[in-house]
């Protein structure tokens, strides 16, 4: 391995080191603050190291990794998100007596896994990244051991994740059997030979889709989502909703672009069906839901559906749209769960409707931020969500995906209902009897509050002036190898 390799893998290495260091520190001396600082530092350092590398031309580390603008952007995005989540986690875990320190190790590790996936160009690295992510997630989800819901969520996720990765692996095996290589480029060249895909390969792809679909929690592999979201601690939920999905999505894009799956109507058909089903199922399930975390879970299902619509476009604009939307979605989701984390108390997360009743009058700013997040999820102007949705619809219209776009529009109407339902609840006058939920040590909320404010500002900023972000994305994606080919 040359020095260049090290430089280009720097973010990942930093994360690994960060994880190890904090492990050692814990063994020496348990202190929440210190671990927290180490984590934050390692995320920041990893992020900074991204700038060290000139991603103008993609840099490959045969045969496993490739580092290009695309992966750089995704890694950066996920690192920032992870950082923000860790900020939110501090206050959240500070209030709870459990041994909080290991949480950060797991957080770093799962982030590492997501990053690995994004840069991987080989089944092995893909698989490793996925598993690093998942295994870390199992324990993250079930981190609050005293809550049986947490354990239930953990076990459900574990079984299903293992189940689906079995599919994924089997699919990989089949693909490997059919093509004799496990690098994406190799596979691409191999299947370029066939005029129509052999059964083995198709089956393999199908099974891989199952594995990926599970991580993306799209219909019909979505069922775990609400339970896990509900059971997991709020920050972890935020993490599942953002980073883990972001990593998988990045990988999906890369893989699909490499093998150019859009040539095969079968695969396109499958993804179309998945997209439509996800949009409908997500929104309809959320419609009358009373548990806010579950609502967000369902809404994330439908949002993945929206993303797939842009994915179906399968061109530069599509990827741009996905990336932009992902940014907006990350900000929004983290913000939303951050608010929930902030309002939660020892015994349970603030996930019931009544926890939000009259919030605007009790905590105007928190309520305002949450409102902004929800409006962004609903795709209302002045928020990043609007621009993102606009981007996606534009892509769809541009590539004449009329059916998916029409359904997207229909669904964003349905979606409105439950978003504004939450808003309406927050705006109700609280009855005098209901005393505000017990606050623990407001001082420790500083970090969270700051994070939320930053998120809100980002949200509005991108919503009002998206130009900068769009520029960044387009410039970075230009080096996305497979895109430049087409």
């Amino acid at each position: 391995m040359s020095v260049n390799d090290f430089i280009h893998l720097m973010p990942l290495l930093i994360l690994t080191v960060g994880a190890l260091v904090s492990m050692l520190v814990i063994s020496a001396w348990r202190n929440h603050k210190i671990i927290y600082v180490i984590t934050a530092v390692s995320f920041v350092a990893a992020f900074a190291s991204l700038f060290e590398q000139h991603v103008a031309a993609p840099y490959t580390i045969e045969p496993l990794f490739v580092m290009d603008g695309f992966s750089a952007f995704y890694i950066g995005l996920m690192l920032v998100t992870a950082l923000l989540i860790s900020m939110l986690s501090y206050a959240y875990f500070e209030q709870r007596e459990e041994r909080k320190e290991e949480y950060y190790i797991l957080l770093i590790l799962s982030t590492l896994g997501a990053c690995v996936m994004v840069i991987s160009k080989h089944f092995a690295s893909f698989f490793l990244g996925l598993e690093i992510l998942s295994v870390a997630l199992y324990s993250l989800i079930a981190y609050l051991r005293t809550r049986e819901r947490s354990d239930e969520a953990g076990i459900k996720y574990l079984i299903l994740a293992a189940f689906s990765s079995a599919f994924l692996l089997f699919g990989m095996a089949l693909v490997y059997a059919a093509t004799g290589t496990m690098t994406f480029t190799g596979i691409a060249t191999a299947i370029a030979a066939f005029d129509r895909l052999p059964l083995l390969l198709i089956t393999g792809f199908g099974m891989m889709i199952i594995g990926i679909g599970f991580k993306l929690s799209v219909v019909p592999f979505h069922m775990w989502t609400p339970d896990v979201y509900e059971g997991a601690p709020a920050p972890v939920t935020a993490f599942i909703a953002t980073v883990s999905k972001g990593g998988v999505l990045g990988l999906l894009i890369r893989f699909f672009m490499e093998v150019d799956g859009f040539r095969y109507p079968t695969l396109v058909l499958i993804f179309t069906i998945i997209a439509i089903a996800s949009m409908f199922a997500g929104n309809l399930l959320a419609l009358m839901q009373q548990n806010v975390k579950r609502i967000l879970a369902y809404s994330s299902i439908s949002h993945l559906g929206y993303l797939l619509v842009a994915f179906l476009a399968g061109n530069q604009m599509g990827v741009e749209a996905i990336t932009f939307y992902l940014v907006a979605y990350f900000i929004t989701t983290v913000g939303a769960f951050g608010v929930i984390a902030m309002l939660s108390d020892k015994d349970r997360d603030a996930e019931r409707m009544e926890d939000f009743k009259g919030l605007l009058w009790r905590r105007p700013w928190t309520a305002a931020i949450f409102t902004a997040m929800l409006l962004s999820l609903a795709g209302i102007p002045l928020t990043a969500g609007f621009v993102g949705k606009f981007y996606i619809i534009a892509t769809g219209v541009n590539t004449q995906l009329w059916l998916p776009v029409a359904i997207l529009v229909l669904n964003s109407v349905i979606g409105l209902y439950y978003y504004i339902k939450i808003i309406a609840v927050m705006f109700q006058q609280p009855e005098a009897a209901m005393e505000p939920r017990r606050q623990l040590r407001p001082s420790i909320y500083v970090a969270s509050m700051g994070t939320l404010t930053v998120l809100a500002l980002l949200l509005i900023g991108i919503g009002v002036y998206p130009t900068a972000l769009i520029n960044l994305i387009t410039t970075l994606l230009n080096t996305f190898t497979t895109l430049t080919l087409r």
Partner: protein
Amino acid sequence: MILVWLIVILMAGGLLAWLAQKWHRASPRWIALGSVLATLGITVYLWLAMPAATLGASPWLLQYELPWIPQWGVSFSLALDGLSLLMLLLTFFLGLVAILISWREIKNKVGFFHFNLLWVLAGITGVFLTMDLFLFYFFWEVMLIPMYFLIGIWGHENRNYAAYKFFIFTQASGLLMLLAILGLYFIHGSQTGTYTFNYFALLNTSLAPEAARLLMFGFLAAFLVKLPVVPFHSWLPDAHSEAPTAGSVILAGLLLKTGAYGLLRFVLPLFPTATVEFAPWAMLLGVIGIIYGAILAFSQTDLKRLVAYTSVSHMGFVILGVFAFNEWALQGVVMQMITHGLSTGALFILAGFLYERLHTRDIRLMGGFWSRAPKMGVVALIFVMASLGLPGLGNFIAEFLTLVGSWQANNWLTVFATIGLVMATAYSLRIMQKVFYEPSLVEQPALPDLTSREMLIAAPMIVGLLWLGLYPQPVLDLAQPSVQEQLQAYSGSKVEPKVAAVEAPLSIAEIDSVYFEAAVKDLKK
């Protein structure tokens, strides 16, 4: 630049009002009042400062453009012509009224209330000014959210339901418009290679008939729902009747007008052929609206709901006129937009007065108020007469012009529309009868007559209605060039914007120079 100020003042004022509530309870009212007064002042000044408006060398008086999302050819471009100027005058006037009306009515969360109020106004201002379809959609949405809050927070008993309904209807239709906008954008882009949302550029898009039809329906969806035209009206009665008085005033007076404005500004010039095909149906919808609304209004017992249905009926005239494609009708429509804004707004205000006093909107519980509140009676009488189109009041001019115009286009529909006037008489007089004439069945608390503040609100509207009814010429002159502009496509020649290429933002002082340049440009052609 001055156009930007209009929006900025409102938005800033809104934020300020929200924050100011902390240090003084009543300050938001004054801040809001001040900022709306400022905008109103600017607009009036603009009006007086440009007699050029009537010359019509180019209908455009002021322009401002600033790149916003260059990648997509989105620009922050505003332009002012006679039509939008009129709409702005109406907007700020009604905004002023809305603030005055809430002076006593709104007691909790005053700051946030005025924030929303001002932002609605800002959004509406943007809608009336913007010349970039992306920006148009942007403002179109921006004006909805605060409105949703106005209804949802300060509304009456059933506010949540009404707010949802309003929001979902308008959003759904708006998204369809977004699709149409994008379709237009890409078609134009693929034709010319330059992807832009600029209105004037898009005007020159040549569309295949069926494409034009689809896109037109996309736009129509938004505007017809907002107007509203009958099959899509059902959000309106709930929203109007549940909103606080100020909300109802703005809804009826302004939000509905954005639909009409959209029809005039976008649908007519963008899709000349498609609209001509669609015209008979549109007019039919208008007539149905007129009659259906009138019948429903007649049977209502909730005063605000009644008035709401009357606006359904009145808006029928708008679409009837728009699709008659002649100057009489369009001028009638413009007049209708303004006078309906005044008269219906006034009726809602009246309902507000009554509600403040009696805490009910049920006209079965009212009655015999003439003897107790003669002033209110006279005021009500005038507004009611306006709404039934009594000559001498603005609405008559509007309706008569509209009908004269639509008669040229379609005789039978016009006949039925005219019958609508009789029905209008029926429901309007019912208001007078139930509220002010026959004694009420239940004993009502003492009913104080209009206070001076309330007279201050009512008087300008009465004067305005009389003025519009007896000497509407200034308004008509102001609207004339724009109306001509919208009608160009229908006088044979293909639409091409007669606008001077956009230069650096203008100041009032430079208006004449715009004129000069526009004239020069015309000469060069």
